[in-house]
């Protein structure tokens, strides 16, 4: 690691995620070629920027539907962001209740599959297998299909597999709340080991106490926007106040508040984000670079069509020769 320059483990700039809601399948296909033609948009994330250093343990809090899962999915590369940039300097491991397990396979087969995907040879896997099985505490169940497992057992298996892959960045998504306290403690001590090794951890939990116990920084996301990102104590207190206020509202008030926020997420545009960035003192080029919709490019149109024309032309020539010569 470079000591002269501060290096971030994760660096996000103005990340947005838009879910386009389509009436039917063909509308969806049309939009992939013609750009966004959706009848309705929903911006699950509206411009998140943050830097995370090695050794940071970041708690992510927010009420249901605030965009936590969307952020985690983007971090772990499951879905692409709509605009903005994300830089990761290390491998990622995700521990979540139903993450990445194949339900038809047995526990043992799942372990092997995951390790094969990491590029390990069968010999290496055979060596690591006893450790992983022992840590998962599944015992006889290891040779049963995962669909017969309880939630707690799945969480244990997932946790064992991911932590044995030794990722640089670990994402823990509510996974520890389903196991029994015995396993939670074991898992938490494993996480402490990771912290001691200066790995970066993202920790999502509805249990504020657990967040307080473990993290040193907290990110509070609300309705797709970053409300605050800073030292644990300060942000958790702010969040707690917010939740209290929300709970103190009458049902009607709360419904109006929430639906107003959701409406804002629907009518959000990237232009709004641009205005906000300009106000914060970013220059024009920077703003445009940050809000450019992430494009997926294949080949450029002209070489593509030229190549295809040439190939089809040659083919016509061959067919012509066939028919002439019989």
């Amino acid at each position: 690691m470079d000591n002269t320059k501060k290096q971030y483990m994760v660096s996000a700039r103005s990340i947005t995620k838009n879910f386009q809601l389509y009436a039917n399948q063909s509308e969806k296909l049309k939009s992939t070629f013609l750009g966004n033609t959706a009848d309705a948009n929903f911006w699950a994330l509206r411009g998140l920027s943050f830097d995370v250093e090695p050794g940071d343990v970041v708690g992510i809090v927010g009420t249901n539907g605030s965009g936590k899962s969307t952020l985690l999915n983007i971090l772990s590369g499951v879905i692409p962001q709509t605009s903005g940039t994300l830089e990761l300097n290390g491998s990622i491991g995700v521990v979540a209740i139903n993450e990445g397990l194949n339900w038809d396979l047995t526990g043992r087969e799942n372990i092997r599959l995951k390790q094969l995907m990491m590029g390990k040879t069968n010999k290496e896997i055979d060596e690591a297998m006893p450790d992983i099985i022992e840590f998962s505490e599944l015992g006889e169940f290891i040779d049963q299909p995962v669909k017969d497992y309880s939630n707690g057992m799945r969480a244990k298996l997932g946790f064992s597999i991911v932590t044995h892959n030794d990722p640089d960045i670990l994402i823990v998504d509510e996974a520890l709340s389903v196991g029994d306290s015995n396993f939670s403690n074991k898992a938490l001590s494993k996480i402490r080991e990771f912290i001691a090794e200066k790995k970066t951890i993202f920790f999502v939990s509805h249990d504020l106490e657990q967040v307080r116990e473990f993290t040193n920084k907290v990110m509070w996301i609300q309705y797709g926007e970053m409300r605050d990102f800073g030292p644990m104590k300060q942000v958790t207190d702010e969040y707690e106040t917010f939740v209290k206020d929300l709970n103190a509202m009458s049902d009607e008030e709360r419904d109006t508040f929430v639906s107003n926020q959701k409406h804002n997420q629907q009518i959000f545009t990237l232009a709004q984000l641009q205005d906000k960035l300009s106000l914060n003192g970013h220059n024009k080029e920077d703003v445009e670079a940050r809000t450019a919709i992430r494009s997926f490019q294949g080949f450029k149109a002209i070489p593509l069509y030229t190549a295809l024309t040439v190939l089809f032309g040659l083919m016509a020539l061959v067919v012509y020769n066939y028919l002439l010569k019989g």
Partner: protein
Amino acid sequence: MWIMIKSIFSLVVEQVNYLGMAIRLAIYDTKANNAHKYLGNFWEILDPLFQVLTYAIIFGGGFRQSAPVEGTPYFVWMSVGFSAWYLVNQGFSDTIRSIQTQIFMVKNVKFPVSVLPTIRVLQVFPAVCSISIVAFISMALTGHFHVSIYWIQIIYYMFAALVMLFFLGIFSATINILIPDYDLAIRQVLRLLFFVSGILFEPAKGNAFNSLIYYISRVNPFYYIVNGWRDTFLFDRWFWNSPLQLTMFWLEIGIFAVIGTHLYLKFKDQLIDFI
């Protein structure tokens, strides 16, 4: 244009680099698929053998006695072609859903999506080997088993088949995610294609209909591979002796390579949004 050739080539290099992993995953997946059956992996061999046997009974024996083709007994002629046909047909139809069914496996892992179709192609090999053995046995029994210098060109035809399967696969697997109907539509085409690929009878010019089938078979890349297998093992013909078919085949592969790579590069990072 240069970028295009480079990115197509780098896709192929990716396959070679990940070949070891792809083979391990293919073996693993086949085992896992058969783990709960009593006959287990034996089915990988049984299934294709029964297919070739069915065609042998219907067209070679009882129902319709077929004449020897160019001096080769029908069953020998058919089974040699069938081993090639099984490779291209089964390999191809298995790649169509390869990305769709396996994409959940590769999230969070640094593993290129383009290797997923290759895994499916590799899984066809045990079956192809078992049909080939049957074909060799039948060749030996009828006295047509002559190892010759021509057998070397199986390397060329195998290479051609693999390149075809790869680019067709990457094209189809991507398309199938964008357009879910593709899978079913292609199955109908493959069913028809079976009869214009020269598996059960050699297409020959005749009346308008027969000529049509004859001409389709000449431009059909699957026929090119099947015919190549027979040229190698039975008829002792070099592949450069049919330059027009050779050109046609590689032009077709070129088109699939260009369109397939384009679609793959365009959509590889957002495929999951479509599932």
